[in-house]
């Protein structure tokens, strides 16, 4: 490694050690955002799997086109609503973690105004200061993203363990004949028995809900975590690089 690279690394290490509390907050914020993205994406994927299982199970049992269509619509709507809600929650958490990272980076730059003024007086060009601030924020961002992946994996593992077994039941239109093999509903009849006139005979399928993680989900989370760190770092670096050295050096505190 060049002397220049070693110097930047030493500076980075010492600076993160000095601001460990702030670095921890930034990393924790990004970890929560990234973790939620993983959990929601995996849960959404799990919901789609459950939807397919439910549909294939019920459609197999349903005896009329009308029933099949009703099942399809109801399950798809429920799955869609759950996925939408999860996506919004994850997006809000991610946006909040980005904002937190940006605010903490800007606060750090403001506290270090004299330091950047001194570096400029030493002849550091703006791009070198930009690289320093970006490197600090991206390092914290990578740590937060890794922690977020661990958090996300733990969350989805918890869903797998605690995940409910979903029982979906749909009322058959009057007069239809439930096929053999359908699950007998509580208080109802199945397996070829006819329901009394005026009563509807429900169909039911049980599916265990889980949240499987794919490589794509992890890649998305890593991408978003790094993007958040880059956005925050760019904002801080831009502010640090634009500082007037004269004003920065006369700043008190």
């Amino acid at each position, binding site marked *: 490694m060049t*002397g220049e690279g070693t*110097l930047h690394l030493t*500076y980075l290490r010492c600076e993160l050690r000095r601001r460990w509390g702030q670095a921890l907050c930034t990393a924790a914020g990004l970890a929560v955002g990234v973790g939620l993205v993983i959990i929601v994406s995996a849960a959404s994927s799990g919901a789609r799997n459950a939807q397919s299982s439910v549909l294939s199970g019920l459609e197999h049992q349903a005896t009329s086109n009308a029933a099949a269509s009703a099942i399809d619509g109801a399950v798809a709507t429920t799955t869609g609503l759950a996925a939408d809600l999860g996506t919004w929650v994850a997006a809000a958490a991610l946006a909040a973690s980005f904002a937190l990272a940006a605010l903490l980076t800007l606060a750090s730059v403001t506290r270090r105004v004299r330091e950047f003024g001194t*570096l400029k007086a*030493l002849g550091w060009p*703006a791009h070198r200061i930009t690289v320093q601030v970006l490197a600090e924020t991206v390092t914290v961002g990578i740590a937060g993203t890794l922690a977020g992946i661990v958090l996300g994996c733990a969350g989805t593992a918890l869903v797998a363990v605690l995940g409910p077994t979903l029982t979906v039941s749909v009322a058959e239109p009057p007069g239809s004949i439930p096929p053999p093999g359908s699950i007998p509903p509580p208080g109802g009849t199945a397996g070829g028995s006819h329901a009394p006139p005026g009563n509807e005979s429900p169909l039911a399928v049980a599916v265990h809900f889980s949240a499987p993680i794919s490589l794509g989900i992890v890649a998305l989370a890593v991408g978003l975590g790094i993007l958040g760190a880059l956005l925050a770092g760019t904002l801080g670096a831009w502010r640090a690089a634009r500082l*007037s*050295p004269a004003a920065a050096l006369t700043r008190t505190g």
Partner: protein
Amino acid sequence: MYTLTGVTRTYRKGSQTVTALAGVDAVIADGEWLAIQGPTGHGKTTLLQLLGGLDRPTSGTVLLGGRNMGAMPEAEIARVRATWIGFIFQTFNLIPTLPVAVNVELALAPFQFDAAERRTCVARALAAVGLADRASHLPAELSGGQQQRVGIARALVKEPTVLLADEPTGNLDETTRDEIIALLEELWRDRGLTLVMVTHDSTIAARAQRIGQMRDGRLTFDGPAAPGGHERPWPA
């Protein structure tokens, strides 16, 4: 070294315009030691910042080695600061978490030196200020005088032509002040530096070759420029 012609610097402060420099004309010779005195708020630090390329004049020209600093693009003026000019601050401005050696090494960052060359330069600079054995210490583990020595080593490690010092002994006791000024005087003489020092202390100012008085943004001298006589070409 420096030629200043009709230099003014004004600032906007709310709805008011504040004049920090109101037309400064001066010639500072190569190798000269110039002390600048004057009451607080009369433009001493502003003048030093213009000489160091940290700020630009509102009007007039500041020539360093014949080149107009006010007209240089930012990247070039950063290169001039890196190569030509060493700064010494009243409050030392060391980075508290970096060991002494790394603080000094920061001044070499703009140069393409390898790690071994950097270490050699830093060791030499620390030895020159009597702190060879303190390289791995943090600034907080040093006294004020030692911290200022580190500041001097950081200013000199790149072997500049000009040394600009803003109240370098303002935060030090009398004994330490004398040690620091003796060190600066020795370095100035041995290295043929052009030294411009802002100071409130008349004892220190009296040791300079020439004294400039800054009052109401104007600079007057007690005598003509005192050439020390050394030239250095512009870096390629």
